[in-house]
Protein backbone atom coordinates (compact mmCIF):
# COMPACT_ATOMS: atom_id res chain seq x y z
CA UNK A 1 0.00 0.00 0.00
CA UNK A 2 2.95 2.32 0.63
CA UNK A 3 3.92 2.43 -3.01
CA UNK A 4 0.38 3.38 -3.97
CA UNK A 5 -0.38 5.89 -1.20
CA UNK A 6 3.00 7.55 -0.79
CA UNK A 7 4.57 7.21 -4.26
CA UNK A 8 1.53 7.44 -6.52
CA UNK A 9 2.25 4.22 -8.40
CA UNK A 10 -0.81 2.12 -9.30
CA UNK A 11 -0.44 -1.27 -7.66
CA UNK A 12 -2.11 -4.61 -7.17
CA UNK A 13 -1.31 -6.87 -4.23
CA UNK A 14 -1.51 -10.64 -4.59
CA UNK A 15 -2.38 -12.67 -1.47
CA UNK A 16 -3.40 -16.21 -0.65
CA UNK A 17 -7.12 -16.72 -0.16
CA UNK A 18 -6.98 -17.54 3.57
CA UNK A 19 -6.05 -13.92 4.17
CA UNK A 20 -8.91 -12.21 2.40
CA UNK A 21 -10.60 -10.84 5.53
CA UNK A 22 -7.41 -9.74 7.20
CA UNK A 23 -5.91 -7.95 4.19
CA UNK A 24 -9.17 -6.17 3.39
CA UNK A 25 -9.38 -5.14 7.04
CA UNK A 26 -5.81 -3.86 6.97
CA UNK A 27 -6.60 -1.86 3.83
CA UNK A 28 -9.65 -0.36 5.54
CA UNK A 29 -7.82 0.75 8.68
CA UNK A 30 -5.02 2.17 6.58
CA UNK A 31 -7.58 4.34 4.83
CA UNK A 32 -7.48 2.49 1.51
CA UNK A 33 -10.66 0.39 1.33
CA UNK A 34 -10.52 0.37 -2.45
CA UNK A 35 -6.97 -0.98 -2.64
CA UNK A 36 -6.85 -3.53 -5.45
CA UNK A 37 -6.17 -7.07 -4.18
CA UNK A 38 -6.16 -10.41 -6.00
CA UNK A 39 -6.13 -13.85 -4.42
CA UNK A 40 -4.54 -17.19 -5.27
CA UNK A 41 -4.89 -20.51 -3.44
CA UNK A 42 -3.04 -21.17 -0.22
CA UNK A 43 -0.25 -22.28 0.03
CA UNK A 44 2.37 -20.75 -2.21
CA UNK A 45 5.11 -22.05 0.08
CA UNK A 46 6.72 -25.26 -1.15
CA UNK A 47 4.91 -25.36 -4.48
CA UNK A 48 6.83 -26.03 -7.69
CA UNK A 49 7.10 -23.52 -10.50
CA UNK A 50 4.67 -25.61 -12.51
CA UNK A 51 2.13 -25.67 -9.68
CA UNK A 52 2.42 -21.91 -9.24
CA UNK A 53 2.01 -21.39 -12.96
CA UNK A 54 -1.31 -23.17 -12.56
CA UNK A 55 -2.23 -20.59 -9.92
CA UNK A 56 -1.34 -17.80 -12.37
CA UNK A 57 -3.32 -19.39 -15.18
CA UNK A 58 -6.20 -20.28 -12.88
CA UNK A 59 -9.01 -18.44 -11.16
CA UNK A 60 -9.09 -16.29 -8.06
CA UNK A 61 -10.67 -18.74 -5.57
CA UNK A 62 -12.79 -15.97 -4.05
CA UNK A 63 -14.27 -14.48 -7.22
CA UNK A 64 -13.91 -17.31 -9.72
CA UNK A 65 -12.46 -14.87 -12.25
CA UNK A 66 -9.07 -15.42 -13.97
CA UNK A 67 -6.24 -14.26 -11.73
CA UNK A 68 -4.37 -12.37 -14.45
CA UNK A 69 -7.52 -10.69 -15.71
CA UNK A 70 -8.04 -9.34 -12.20
CA UNK A 71 -4.40 -8.26 -12.00
CA UNK A 72 -4.51 -6.38 -15.30
CA UNK A 73 -7.88 -4.81 -14.50
CA UNK A 74 -6.61 -3.84 -11.08
CA UNK A 75 -4.01 -1.66 -12.75
CA UNK A 76 -6.22 -0.29 -15.51
CA UNK A 77 -9.86 -0.16 -14.35
CA UNK A 78 -10.81 3.43 -13.43
CA UNK A 79 -11.21 4.22 -9.76
CA UNK A 80 -14.61 4.22 -8.17
CA UNK A 81 -15.70 6.12 -5.06
CA UNK A 82 -13.76 3.80 -2.74
CA UNK A 83 -10.53 4.74 -4.43
CA UNK A 84 -11.05 8.44 -4.03
CA UNK A 85 -10.19 10.39 -0.95
CA UNK A 86 -9.51 11.80 1.42
CA UNK A 87 -12.14 11.43 4.11
CA UNK A 88 -11.72 10.78 7.81
CA UNK A 89 -13.76 8.70 10.19
CA UNK A 90 -13.52 8.22 13.90
CA UNK A 91 -13.88 5.02 15.90
CA UNK A 92 -14.61 5.99 19.45
CA UNK A 93 -14.78 3.53 22.33
CA UNK A 94 -17.50 4.27 24.91
CA UNK A 95 -16.38 4.11 28.52
CA UNK A 96 -19.32 1.98 29.64
CA UNK A 97 -21.13 -1.01 28.24
CA UNK A 98 -24.93 -0.92 28.20
CA UNK A 99 -26.19 -2.28 31.57
CA UNK A 100 -27.07 -5.96 31.78
CA UNK A 101 -27.30 -8.94 34.07
CA UNK A 102 -24.29 -11.05 35.04
CA UNK A 103 -25.39 -13.68 32.52
CA UNK A 104 -26.11 -11.30 29.66
CA UNK A 105 -22.87 -9.38 30.15
CA UNK A 106 -20.80 -12.55 30.30
CA UNK A 107 -22.40 -13.55 27.01
CA UNK A 108 -21.84 -10.09 25.50
CA UNK A 109 -18.14 -10.09 26.41
CA UNK A 110 -17.74 -13.58 24.96
CA UNK A 111 -19.58 -12.75 21.72
CA UNK A 112 -17.59 -9.54 21.29
CA UNK A 113 -14.33 -11.52 21.48
CA UNK A 114 -13.34 -9.61 24.63
CA UNK A 115 -12.43 -12.76 26.59
CA UNK A 116 -10.21 -15.82 26.28
CA UNK A 117 -13.42 -17.87 26.02
CA UNK A 118 -13.36 -18.55 29.78
CA UNK A 119 -15.65 -16.72 32.23
CA UNK A 120 -14.33 -13.37 33.35
CA UNK A 121 -14.83 -11.15 36.37
CA UNK A 122 -17.12 -8.35 35.21
CA UNK A 123 -15.35 -4.98 35.44
CA UNK A 124 -17.78 -2.99 37.56
CA UNK A 125 -16.89 0.56 38.51
CA UNK A 126 -16.21 -0.50 42.11
CA UNK A 127 -13.82 -3.28 41.07
CA UNK A 128 -11.99 -1.06 38.62
CA UNK A 129 -11.72 1.69 41.25
CA UNK A 130 -10.14 -0.78 43.69
CA UNK A 131 -7.60 -1.74 41.04
CA UNK A 132 -6.83 1.90 40.28
CA UNK A 133 -6.21 2.57 43.98
CA UNK A 134 -3.02 0.49 43.79
CA UNK A 135 -1.18 2.82 41.44
CA UNK A 136 -0.22 6.47 41.83
CA UNK A 137 -0.93 7.09 38.16
CA UNK A 138 -4.00 8.96 36.91
CA UNK A 139 -6.77 6.81 35.38
CA UNK A 140 -6.65 8.78 32.13
CA UNK A 141 -2.86 8.63 31.75
CA UNK A 142 -1.83 6.94 28.52
CA UNK A 143 0.19 3.79 29.22
CA UNK A 144 1.22 2.83 25.70
CA UNK A 145 0.29 1.61 22.26
CA UNK A 146 -0.03 -1.92 20.91
CA UNK A 147 -0.95 -3.75 17.73
CA UNK A 148 -1.33 -7.38 16.70
CA UNK A 149 0.94 -7.19 13.65
CA UNK A 150 3.37 -4.87 11.99
CA UNK A 151 0.81 -3.99 9.32
CA UNK A 152 -2.05 -2.96 11.57
CA UNK A 153 -2.53 0.38 13.24
CA UNK A 154 -1.43 0.75 16.88
CA UNK A 155 -4.18 1.41 19.42
CA UNK A 156 -3.72 3.49 22.55
CA UNK A 157 -4.79 2.76 26.12
CA UNK A 158 -5.06 4.44 29.49
CA UNK A 159 -4.39 3.28 33.04
CA UNK A 160 -8.13 2.77 33.50
CA UNK A 161 -8.38 0.57 30.41
CA UNK A 162 -5.57 -1.63 31.74
CA UNK A 163 -7.39 -1.82 35.09
CA UNK A 164 -10.58 -3.00 33.37
CA UNK A 165 -8.72 -5.91 31.80
CA UNK A 166 -6.88 -6.70 35.04
CA UNK A 167 -10.23 -7.02 36.82
CA UNK A 168 -11.56 -9.26 34.05
CA UNK A 169 -8.60 -11.61 34.54
CA UNK A 170 -9.34 -11.98 38.23
CA UNK A 171 -6.18 -10.18 39.33
CA UNK A 172 -5.98 -8.69 42.81
CA UNK A 173 -5.35 -4.93 43.02
CA UNK A 174 -1.88 -5.42 44.52
CA UNK A 175 -0.78 -7.06 41.26
CA UNK A 176 -1.71 -3.98 39.25
CA UNK A 177 1.77 -2.37 39.02
CA UNK A 178 3.10 -5.56 37.39
CA UNK A 179 0.21 -5.58 34.93
CA UNK A 180 0.72 -1.91 34.10
CA UNK A 181 4.41 -2.58 33.48
CA UNK A 182 3.48 -5.38 31.09
CA UNK A 183 1.07 -3.07 29.26
CA UNK A 184 3.74 -0.37 29.10
CA UNK A 185 6.10 -2.67 27.18
CA UNK A 186 3.82 -2.36 24.14
CA UNK A 187 4.63 -6.00 23.37
CA UNK A 188 1.44 -7.83 22.48
CA UNK A 189 0.70 -11.19 24.05
CA UNK A 190 -1.81 -11.73 21.22
CA UNK A 191 0.35 -11.37 18.16
CA UNK A 192 -1.39 -12.29 14.93
CA UNK A 193 1.47 -14.31 13.47
CA UNK A 194 0.51 -17.45 11.55
CA UNK A 195 3.07 -19.26 13.71
CA UNK A 196 0.73 -19.08 16.76
CA UNK A 197 3.16 -17.49 19.18
CA UNK A 198 2.56 -16.74 22.86
CA UNK A 199 4.52 -14.63 25.32
CA UNK A 200 6.35 -15.36 28.57
CA UNK A 201 6.86 -12.93 31.47
CA UNK A 202 9.55 -13.23 34.16
CA UNK A 203 9.24 -11.17 37.32
CA UNK A 204 12.30 -10.17 39.35
CA UNK A 205 12.97 -8.22 42.51
CA UNK A 206 11.08 -7.55 45.75
CA UNK A 207 7.62 -7.42 44.13
CA UNK A 208 7.81 -11.21 43.77
CA UNK A 209 7.57 -11.67 47.54
CA UNK A 210 5.24 -8.70 48.12
CA UNK A 211 2.50 -10.27 46.00
CA UNK A 212 3.39 -13.88 46.83
CA UNK A 213 4.41 -14.96 43.34
CA UNK A 214 5.70 -18.47 42.85
CA UNK A 215 9.25 -19.24 41.70
CA UNK A 216 9.30 -22.76 43.07
CA UNK A 217 7.19 -25.91 42.71
CA UNK A 218 4.76 -25.52 39.80
CA UNK A 219 5.75 -21.91 39.08
CA UNK A 220 4.93 -22.16 35.37
CA UNK A 221 1.59 -23.91 35.91
CA UNK A 222 -1.85 -23.03 37.29
CA UNK A 223 -0.84 -23.21 40.96
CA UNK A 224 -0.41 -19.62 42.09
CA UNK A 225 -2.99 -16.85 41.98
CA UNK A 226 -0.60 -14.02 41.11
CA UNK A 227 1.27 -15.97 38.42
CA UNK A 228 -1.98 -17.18 36.86
CA UNK A 229 -3.96 -13.96 36.84
CA UNK A 230 -1.12 -11.61 35.88
CA UNK A 231 -0.41 -13.83 32.87
CA UNK A 232 -4.10 -13.97 31.99
CA UNK A 233 -4.41 -10.20 32.37
CA UNK A 234 -1.50 -9.75 29.97
CA UNK A 235 -3.37 -11.76 27.34
CA UNK A 236 -6.72 -10.03 27.85
CA UNK A 237 -5.29 -6.53 27.88
CA UNK A 238 -3.35 -7.30 24.73
CA UNK A 239 -6.31 -8.49 22.73
CA UNK A 240 -8.64 -5.73 23.89
CA UNK A 241 -6.31 -2.76 23.94
CA UNK A 242 -4.74 -3.47 20.53
CA UNK A 243 -8.10 -3.71 18.79
CA UNK A 244 -8.81 -7.42 18.87
CA UNK A 245 -7.57 -10.95 18.48
CA UNK A 246 -10.31 -12.39 16.33
CA UNK A 247 -9.50 -15.43 14.15
CA UNK A 248 -9.38 -14.54 10.47
CA UNK A 249 -9.11 -10.80 11.08
CA UNK A 250 -6.76 -9.85 13.89
CA UNK A 251 -5.46 -13.33 14.71
CA UNK A 252 -4.04 -15.65 12.05
CA UNK A 253 -2.22 -18.33 14.09
CA UNK A 254 -2.82 -21.45 12.05
CA UNK A 255 -2.80 -23.94 14.94
CA UNK A 256 -3.24 -21.66 17.96
CA UNK A 257 -1.19 -21.98 21.13
CA UNK A 258 -2.22 -23.23 24.57
CA UNK A 259 0.55 -21.14 26.13
CA UNK A 260 -1.54 -18.09 25.23
CA UNK A 261 -4.16 -18.86 27.90
CA UNK A 262 -1.83 -17.84 30.70
CA UNK A 263 1.26 -16.58 28.90
CA UNK A 264 3.75 -18.40 31.19
CA UNK A 265 4.25 -15.80 33.92
CA UNK A 266 6.41 -16.57 36.93
CA UNK A 267 9.04 -15.23 39.28
CA UNK A 268 12.68 -16.09 38.83
CA UNK A 269 13.97 -18.20 41.73
CA UNK A 270 16.61 -15.66 42.68
CA UNK A 271 17.13 -17.11 46.14
CA UNK A 272 18.09 -20.56 44.83
CA UNK A 273 19.88 -19.45 41.67
CA UNK A 274 23.67 -19.66 41.66
CA UNK A 275 23.83 -16.68 39.28
CA UNK A 276 22.83 -13.05 39.25
CA UNK A 277 19.12 -12.40 38.57
CA UNK A 278 17.88 -11.84 35.03
CA UNK A 279 16.99 -8.18 35.59
CA UNK A 280 20.45 -7.44 37.00
CA UNK A 281 21.93 -8.82 33.77
CA UNK A 282 19.84 -6.20 31.99
CA UNK A 283 20.93 -3.15 33.88
CA UNK A 284 18.63 -3.05 36.90
CA UNK A 285 19.60 -3.18 40.57
CA UNK A 286 18.79 -6.32 42.53
CA UNK A 287 16.45 -4.19 44.66
CA UNK A 288 14.45 -3.05 41.62
CA UNK A 289 11.23 -4.83 40.74
CA UNK A 290 10.83 -5.62 37.06
CA UNK A 291 9.03 -7.76 34.53
CA UNK A 292 10.79 -9.10 31.44
CA UNK A 293 8.86 -10.03 28.33
CA UNK A 294 9.69 -12.72 25.77
CA UNK A 295 7.59 -13.33 22.66
CA UNK A 296 7.50 -15.97 19.97
CA UNK A 297 6.92 -18.78 22.51
CA UNK A 298 6.00 -21.88 20.56
CA UNK A 299 8.56 -24.64 20.92
CA UNK A 300 9.83 -26.35 24.05
CA UNK A 301 12.51 -29.01 24.52
CA UNK A 302 13.10 -30.72 27.84
CA UNK A 303 15.27 -33.26 29.58
CA UNK A 304 16.31 -34.34 33.08
CA UNK A 305 19.60 -33.15 34.50
CA UNK A 306 23.01 -33.33 32.89
CA UNK A 307 24.60 -36.77 32.59
CA UNK A 308 28.34 -36.94 33.23
CA UNK A 309 29.34 -38.69 30.02
CA UNK A 310 27.26 -37.10 27.26
CA UNK A 311 25.69 -33.94 28.73
CA UNK A 312 27.31 -31.78 26.06
CA UNK A 313 25.84 -33.89 23.27
CA UNK A 314 22.43 -33.99 24.93
CA UNK A 315 22.28 -30.21 25.21
CA UNK A 316 23.52 -29.88 21.62
CA UNK A 317 20.72 -32.20 20.47
CA UNK A 318 18.13 -30.06 22.26
CA UNK A 319 19.48 -26.88 20.70
CA UNK A 320 19.53 -28.48 17.24
CA UNK A 321 15.88 -29.32 17.70
CA UNK A 322 14.92 -25.65 17.90
CA UNK A 323 14.04 -23.65 14.78
CA UNK A 324 17.01 -21.34 14.10
CA UNK A 325 14.62 -18.40 13.92
CA UNK A 326 13.44 -19.07 17.48
CA UNK A 327 16.40 -18.59 19.85
CA UNK A 328 16.72 -20.53 23.10
CA UNK A 329 15.94 -19.32 26.61
CA UNK A 330 16.98 -21.97 29.11
CA UNK A 331 14.55 -22.40 32.00
CA UNK A 332 16.63 -24.18 34.61
CA UNK A 333 15.52 -25.72 37.85
CA UNK A 334 18.07 -24.68 40.51
CA UNK A 335 19.30 -28.29 40.63
CA UNK A 336 20.24 -28.13 36.95
CA UNK A 337 21.66 -24.63 37.23
CA UNK A 338 24.13 -25.98 39.78
CA UNK A 339 24.79 -29.02 37.56
CA UNK A 340 25.84 -26.68 34.74
CA UNK A 341 28.43 -25.30 37.16
CA UNK A 342 29.50 -28.74 38.33
CA UNK A 343 29.74 -30.26 34.84
CA UNK A 344 30.90 -27.30 32.80
CA UNK A 345 32.37 -24.87 35.28
CA UNK A 346 29.96 -22.11 34.27
CA UNK A 347 30.19 -20.00 37.41
CA UNK A 348 28.73 -17.06 35.46
CA UNK A 349 25.60 -17.08 33.27
CA UNK A 350 27.66 -15.39 30.57
CA UNK A 351 30.05 -18.33 30.41
CA UNK A 352 27.14 -20.73 29.94
CA UNK A 353 25.66 -18.52 27.22
CA UNK A 354 29.05 -18.43 25.45
CA UNK A 355 29.13 -22.22 25.48
CA UNK A 356 25.55 -22.50 24.23
CA UNK A 357 26.36 -20.13 21.38
CA UNK A 358 29.38 -22.21 20.36
CA UNK A 359 27.50 -25.49 20.73
CA UNK A 360 24.39 -24.59 18.73
CA UNK A 361 25.72 -25.07 15.20
CA UNK A 362 24.58 -26.80 12.04
CA UNK A 363 25.82 -27.13 8.44
CA UNK A 364 25.37 -23.91 6.53
CA UNK A 365 23.29 -25.52 3.79
CA UNK A 366 20.80 -26.87 6.34
CA UNK A 367 20.64 -23.58 8.19
CA UNK A 368 19.86 -21.48 5.13
CA UNK A 369 17.23 -23.96 3.92
CA UNK A 370 14.94 -23.45 6.94
CA UNK A 371 11.79 -21.69 5.74
CA UNK A 372 11.84 -19.07 8.50
CA UNK A 373 15.51 -18.37 7.84
CA UNK A 374 14.63 -17.92 4.18
CA UNK A 375 11.75 -15.60 5.04
CA UNK A 376 13.34 -13.42 7.68
CA UNK A 377 17.15 -13.79 7.70
CA UNK A 378 18.24 -14.57 4.15
CA UNK A 379 16.88 -11.24 2.80
CA UNK A 380 18.86 -9.40 5.48
CA UNK A 381 22.00 -11.41 4.67
CA UNK A 382 21.82 -10.66 0.96
CA UNK A 383 21.79 -6.95 1.68
CA UNK A 384 24.85 -7.07 3.89
CA UNK A 385 23.37 -7.15 7.37
CA UNK A 386 25.58 -8.89 9.92
CA UNK A 387 26.03 -11.49 11.27
CA UNK A 388 23.99 -13.11 8.52
CA UNK A 389 26.01 -11.66 5.63
CA UNK A 390 29.19 -13.35 6.88
CA UNK A 391 27.32 -16.54 7.64
CA UNK A 392 26.09 -16.62 4.04
CA UNK A 393 29.71 -16.95 2.87
CA UNK A 394 30.20 -20.27 4.69
CA UNK A 395 30.73 -23.42 2.61
CA UNK A 396 27.70 -25.75 2.55
CA UNK A 397 29.16 -28.21 5.06
CA UNK A 398 30.71 -25.58 7.33
CA UNK A 399 29.11 -25.46 10.75
CA UNK A 400 27.54 -22.07 11.42
CA UNK A 401 25.99 -20.70 14.64
CA UNK A 402 22.24 -21.21 14.74
CA UNK A 403 21.63 -18.12 16.87
CA UNK A 404 23.11 -14.75 17.74
CA UNK A 405 24.78 -14.82 21.13
CA UNK A 406 22.74 -11.88 22.37
CA UNK A 407 19.52 -13.78 21.69
CA UNK A 408 20.37 -16.64 24.08
CA UNK A 409 19.13 -16.32 27.69
CA UNK A 410 19.01 -18.24 30.96
CA UNK A 411 16.37 -17.99 33.72
CA UNK A 412 16.26 -20.06 36.93
CA UNK A 413 12.83 -21.33 37.99
CA UNK A 414 11.56 -24.40 39.79
CA UNK A 415 11.15 -26.04 43.17
CA UNK A 416 13.97 -28.61 43.15
CA UNK A 417 11.70 -31.64 43.25
CA UNK A 418 13.96 -32.87 40.45
CA UNK A 419 16.42 -31.53 37.90
CA UNK A 420 14.05 -31.23 34.97
CA UNK A 421 14.71 -28.29 32.73
CA UNK A 422 13.57 -27.01 29.40
CA UNK A 423 14.42 -24.72 26.55
CA UNK A 424 11.76 -22.26 25.47
CA UNK A 425 12.20 -21.08 21.91
CA UNK A 426 11.42 -17.37 22.21
CA UNK A 427 12.76 -13.85 21.74
CA UNK A 428 13.55 -11.57 24.66
CA UNK A 429 11.97 -8.17 24.04
CA UNK A 430 12.49 -5.90 27.03
CA UNK A 431 12.55 -5.50 30.79
CA UNK A 432 10.17 -2.94 32.31
CA UNK A 433 10.26 -1.34 35.73
CA UNK A 434 7.38 -2.30 38.01
CA UNK A 435 8.33 0.36 40.53
CA UNK A 436 7.46 3.13 38.07
CA UNK A 437 3.85 1.93 38.08
CA UNK A 438 3.32 1.65 41.82
Amino acid at each position, binding site marked *: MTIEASYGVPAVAVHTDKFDKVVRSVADVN*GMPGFRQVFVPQPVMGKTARELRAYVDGADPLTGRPVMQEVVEG*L*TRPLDDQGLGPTEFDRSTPRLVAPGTEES*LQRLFLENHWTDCLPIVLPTEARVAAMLAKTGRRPDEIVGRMRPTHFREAWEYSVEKVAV*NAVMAGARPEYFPVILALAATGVSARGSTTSSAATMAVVNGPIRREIDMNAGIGAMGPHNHANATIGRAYGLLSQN*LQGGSTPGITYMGSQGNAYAYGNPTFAENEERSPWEPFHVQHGFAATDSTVSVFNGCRSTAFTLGLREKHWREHVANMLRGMDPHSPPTLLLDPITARQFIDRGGFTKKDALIDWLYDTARMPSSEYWDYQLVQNYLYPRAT*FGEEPWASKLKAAPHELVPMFRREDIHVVVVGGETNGYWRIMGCSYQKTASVDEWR
Partner: protein
Amino acid sequence: MGEMLTVLNPVGFAPRVTRKALAPRLATLSGKTVYLVDCRFDDSDVFLKQVQAWFAEHMPSVKTVFKPISSVYLKDDPATWEEIKARGHAAIVGVGH
Protein backbone atom coordinates in the same frame (compact mmCIF):
# COMPACT_ATOMS: atom_id res chain seq x y z
CA MET B 1 -34.39 -11.19 36.22
CA GLY B 2 -30.97 -10.71 37.84
CA GLU B 3 -29.49 -7.51 39.15
CA MET B 4 -28.57 -5.00 36.44
CA LEU B 5 -24.87 -4.20 36.39
CA THR B 6 -22.95 -1.36 34.84
CA VAL B 7 -19.50 -2.36 33.66
CA LEU B 8 -16.65 -0.69 31.81
CA ASN B 9 -15.73 -1.30 28.20
CA PRO B 10 -12.37 -3.16 27.95
CA VAL B 11 -11.46 -2.01 24.43
CA GLY B 12 -8.62 0.43 23.73
CA PHE B 13 -8.70 3.63 21.73
CA ALA B 14 -8.49 3.22 17.96
CA PRO B 15 -6.60 5.82 15.96
CA ARG B 16 -8.48 8.04 13.56
CA VAL B 17 -8.45 6.67 10.03
CA THR B 18 -7.63 9.03 7.19
CA ARG B 19 -8.67 7.82 3.80
CA LYS B 20 -5.90 7.97 1.21
CA ALA B 21 -6.45 8.31 -2.50
CA LEU B 22 -5.35 5.52 -4.79
CA ALA B 23 -3.02 6.31 -7.67
CA PRO B 24 -4.64 7.03 -11.03
CA ARG B 25 -5.01 3.87 -13.11
CA LEU B 26 -3.30 3.36 -16.46
CA ALA B 27 -5.36 3.44 -19.65
CA THR B 28 -3.43 0.42 -20.87
CA LEU B 29 -0.42 -1.66 -19.86
CA SER B 30 0.80 -1.83 -23.45
CA GLY B 31 4.26 -0.32 -23.73
CA LYS B 32 4.43 0.18 -19.97
CA THR B 33 6.92 -1.12 -17.41
CA VAL B 34 5.38 -3.19 -14.63
CA TYR B 35 7.48 -4.04 -11.60
CA LEU B 36 6.92 -7.44 -10.02
CA VAL B 37 7.80 -6.76 -6.40
CA ASP B 38 8.95 -9.86 -4.54
CA CYS B 39 8.12 -9.70 -0.80
CA ARG B 40 10.69 -12.47 -0.25
CA PHE B 41 8.27 -14.54 1.76
CA ASP B 42 7.28 -18.20 1.38
CA ASP B 43 8.52 -18.72 -2.22
CA SER B 44 6.94 -15.54 -3.56
CA ASP B 45 9.86 -15.27 -6.01
CA VAL B 46 8.87 -18.52 -7.70
CA PHE B 47 5.30 -17.28 -8.05
CA LEU B 48 6.18 -13.87 -9.47
CA LYS B 49 8.50 -15.41 -12.06
CA GLN B 50 5.47 -17.32 -13.30
CA VAL B 51 3.58 -14.03 -13.53
CA GLN B 52 6.51 -12.69 -15.52
CA ALA B 53 6.32 -15.69 -17.86
CA TRP B 54 2.59 -15.10 -18.29
CA PHE B 55 3.17 -11.51 -19.41
CA ALA B 56 5.86 -12.63 -21.86
CA GLU B 57 3.45 -15.09 -23.45
CA HIS B 58 0.18 -13.16 -23.32
CA MET B 59 1.11 -9.46 -23.22
CA PRO B 60 4.61 -9.19 -24.72
CA SER B 61 4.25 -5.43 -25.14
CA VAL B 62 4.46 -5.11 -21.36
CA LYS B 63 7.97 -4.84 -19.98
CA THR B 64 8.24 -6.58 -16.61
CA VAL B 65 10.98 -6.11 -14.04
CA PHE B 66 11.39 -8.68 -11.27
CA LYS B 67 12.39 -6.74 -8.15
CA PRO B 68 13.02 -8.31 -4.73
CA ILE B 69 12.56 -5.90 -1.85
CA SER B 70 15.76 -4.81 -0.16
CA SER B 71 15.30 -6.74 3.07
CA VAL B 72 12.48 -8.46 4.93
CA TYR B 73 8.88 -7.44 4.30
CA LEU B 74 8.64 -5.99 7.81
CA LYS B 75 10.89 -3.08 6.82
CA ASP B 76 9.93 -0.15 4.66
CA ASP B 77 11.93 0.00 1.44
CA PRO B 78 12.02 3.57 0.12
CA ALA B 79 14.91 2.84 -2.27
CA THR B 80 12.82 0.25 -4.09
CA TRP B 81 9.71 2.44 -4.13
CA GLU B 82 11.74 5.37 -5.52
CA GLU B 83 13.17 3.16 -8.25
CA ILE B 84 9.72 1.97 -9.27
CA LYS B 85 8.34 5.48 -9.29
CA ALA B 86 11.25 6.68 -11.46
CA ARG B 87 11.44 3.79 -13.89
CA GLY B 88 8.11 2.00 -13.78
CA HIS B 89 4.46 2.66 -14.43
CA ALA B 90 2.79 0.11 -12.15
CA ALA B 91 3.56 -2.58 -9.58
CA ILE B 92 2.33 -6.06 -8.74
CA VAL B 93 3.29 -6.90 -5.18
CA GLY B 94 3.29 -10.46 -3.93
CA VAL B 95 2.84 -12.74 -2.37
CA GLY B 96 1.43 -11.49 0.88
CA HIS B 97 0.15 -14.11 3.23
